[in-house]
């Protein structure tokens, strides 16, 4: 589970050093596949669907695809920061999404929309900071840390809310948000795009996002460049938490209901999308836009399978195969490059 830069020894054997100095150019095609494969795959899949699946190309169906993609996509977009920082994943999104959804509807019903949102943000920050400190300061393994915060978080949520299901007012702001369309497009879908673009900008254009990528690429080099690395990690987990929060909002608004069990499986589903998108779990390589593609790819695939009447089991099997396939390409590319 060690990211590559965390290897204990700081010196390479001299011979190995010399060898590494030599220019090692990647084999072009496999390289390209690793880099651009997801674009190709998505294109092929969509093309296939348009040709062979009746009704796939229809607007309502594409809307379904995006409705599938929106909540998980926003969560994945946020989690991308954690993955790129070389910390594998944030399991606690399960607890975070459910909490955000419940808080949004319950507190809106009780007090109002604004306090609800503020409260949700506060909770997201707590998650981000707790996970971030445990991983960034204590250098504890992200998987276990977020696993335990999931236990604690879900436990607290269910214990405090008694696990009830919450319904938004049938004409409340949440419902409005959930049903409003701009032109043919549901608002949630637009939010999904906007958030992804925003997060993508944060990752590629801002000082912070830059440090996250650098940290994921080489922790020590980043530290020696004078970066406050614990803060970077805390930041990454906070982005993940905020993404999870928005995902929870969208999920709640979509059906105007919220219940603590509504986000089951979001942890690994989000990670699956990120990996399929081609972001490397070794950190450093990847982008939010790739995650967007990954999410779209997975939803298109699921959609196709539902349209062709295939059951839940087959859907799971397909996703599993997909993950291994997508990463195999990357791995083989890395091998050919090393060779």
């Amino acid at each position, binding site marked *: 589970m060690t990211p590559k*830069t965390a*290897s204990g*020894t*700081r*010196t*390479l*054997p*001299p*011979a190995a*050093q*010399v*060898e*590494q*100095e*030599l*220019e*090692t*150019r*990647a084999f072009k095609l496999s390289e390209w596949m690793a880099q651009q494969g997801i674009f190709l795959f998505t294109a092929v899949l969509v093309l296939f669907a348009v040709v062979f699946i009746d009704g796939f190309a229809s607007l309502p169906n594409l809307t379904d695809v995006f409705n599938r993609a929106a909540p998980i996509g926003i969560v994945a977009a946020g989690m991308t920061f954690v993955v790129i920082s070389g910390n594998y994943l944030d399991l606690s999104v399960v607890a975070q999404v459910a909490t955000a959804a419940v808080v949004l509807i319950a507190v809106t019903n009780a007090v109002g929309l604004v306090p609800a949102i503020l409260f949700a943000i506060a909770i997201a920050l707590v998650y981000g900071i707790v996970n971030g400190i445990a991983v960034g300061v204590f250098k504890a393994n992200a998987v276990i840390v977020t696993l335990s915060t999931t236990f604690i978080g879900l436990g607290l949520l269910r214990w405090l809310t008694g696990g009830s299901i919450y319904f938004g007012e049938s004409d409340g702001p949440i419902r409005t948000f959930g049903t409003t369309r701009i032109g043919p497009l549901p608002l949630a879908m637009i939010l999904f795009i906007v958030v992804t673009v925003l997060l993508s900008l944060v990752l590629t*254009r*801002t*000082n*912070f996002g*830059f*440090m996250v*990528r*650098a940290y994921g*690429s*080489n922790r*020590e*080099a*980043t*530290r*020696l*460049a*004078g*970066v*406050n690395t614990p803060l970077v990690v805390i930041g990454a987990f906070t982005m993940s938490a905020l993404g999870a929060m928005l995902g929870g909002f969208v999920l709640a608004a979509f059906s105007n209901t919220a219940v603590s069990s509504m986000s089951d499986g979001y942890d690994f589903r989000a990670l699956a999308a990120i990996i399929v998108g081609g972001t490397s779990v070794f950190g*450093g*390589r990847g982008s939010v836009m790739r995650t967007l593609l990954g999410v779209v790819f997975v939803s298109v695939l699921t959609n196709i399978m539902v349209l062709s009447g295939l059951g839940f089991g087959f859907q799971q099997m397909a996703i599993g195969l997909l993950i291994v396939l997508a990463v195999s390409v990357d791995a083989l590319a890395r091998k050919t490059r090393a060779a």
Partner: protein
Amino acid sequence: MTAAADAPGGQVPSDGDTAPVIEARNVVKRFGGTVAVDDVSITVARGEIHGLVGENGAGKSTLMRVLAGVLAPNEGEVHVDGALLDPGDTRAALDAGVSLVHQELSLVPEMTVAENILLGSTPTWSGFIDGREQRRVAAEALKEIGVAVDLDEPIARLSVALRQFVEIARAIARKPQVLILDEPTATLTPAETEYLLDMLTRLAGRGLAIVYISHRIPEIFAICNRVTVLRDGSLVASKGIEDLTPESVVEYMVGRDLQLDRESRRQDPKIGEVVLSARGLRAPGVNDIDLDVRAGEIVGLGGLVGAGRTELVRAMLGADPRTGGETTITLQGRTRRIVSYRAAIAAGVAYIPEERRSDGLALTMTVVDNIALPNRSALSRAFVLQRRRIAEFATSLAEAVNLRPPEIHREVGQYSGGNQQKVVLAKWLGREPDVIVLDEPTRGVDVGAKVEIHRLIRELADQGAAVLVVSSDLPELLELSDTIHVVRDGRIVGVLSAGEAEETTVMALASGQREVDAA
């Protein structure tokens, strides 16, 4: 298994039997363009301790790796007991009785001493580990080198010195005929070193053939019967110890016309006030160091691998925790204590680490990104990176360091060592540092790049920066430095001014062959 392996090294008599146990014939080893070992032949006889000396990068380690079958030579062959060793087959070399004690430790931290000594050849009884046998062999090996370590102690709990000895015990346990030690004393204290040397003489006395690689001339003269000197990959001398003097060995090692270096030295540098200053600095591997670097001055840190120079600079800058002492940086009359690495960077320090690939660069990122990393704040407004400015900035720096080809959007990992090092420099040049610390700035760098890097370093100094250079490359050290501090065992054992510094004097100090009162 060859017949040779059956003859346990321990018992072989050393009665004047000088038939070569191991023989390398016209070995050539290239790495891409660079020739690491050029047509070298050596022979080692039973009971002989064969010293192999040369500067860093002279090709000693590579030659030994060939002998031990770790590397396959491009040309030439290795014979053990007259039998040809199939190249690049570690297992075969081991079976033939050639054991290499690696320079870097290759032990499993969580396994016990006994287990590590027999790692890979664990005695088993139908699959089950034969604990008694394991402990017996391990104990025997340890007894043979006369070190008492608790067999059940996990390696992780041993001192580096003891780990080194366990490595040796491991080599001995394989009942080798030839024992190759690559810089075994690099991490040992004088006492431990002395102990190791006695041990080797004892082993040789029992007929073991030993190849001993070291920079440290006194050690060579303490134990070796023959000495082979390598320089730039080729063999320059191979004589019996009686025909050599420490001075002559150093001459052979260095043996280079020094005129060129003289000219390229800086003439009358304008040296100002003390900027970077360490007092009573203590850290693992660093013993109570005082060090000053003045504005416009290039201070060189000479010494052998493992002398503690890297530890010194890292502790000085707070990159690694220190156990005592303090560092200050004085600029425009304002003195700041350097309490953390980030404080040092904030105070205007630039640090080019020794391990470029693991500590210096984010290899999966582009040149621009790497250059931007330390300068990100300057290049972003309201936390937003300004792409165009960064690109221009990077381009200009890429030109300044003469990056070839200057494709700033290429992944650094795809550049050669020399170019990578230029990128490391570029990313710090951007900050116009007042203090710049370089650790082995030209290791693994081609000649062309080397010259340019030297030029850059001088320019920095001329602009009034305080420069501290760590280098194991003597000509480089002499060529660059205005003052040279020689470090040994974590202490500064000599300070030489550009004028009086000769390669021989530096080497003599570094290797402890000569103690001089600090100039």
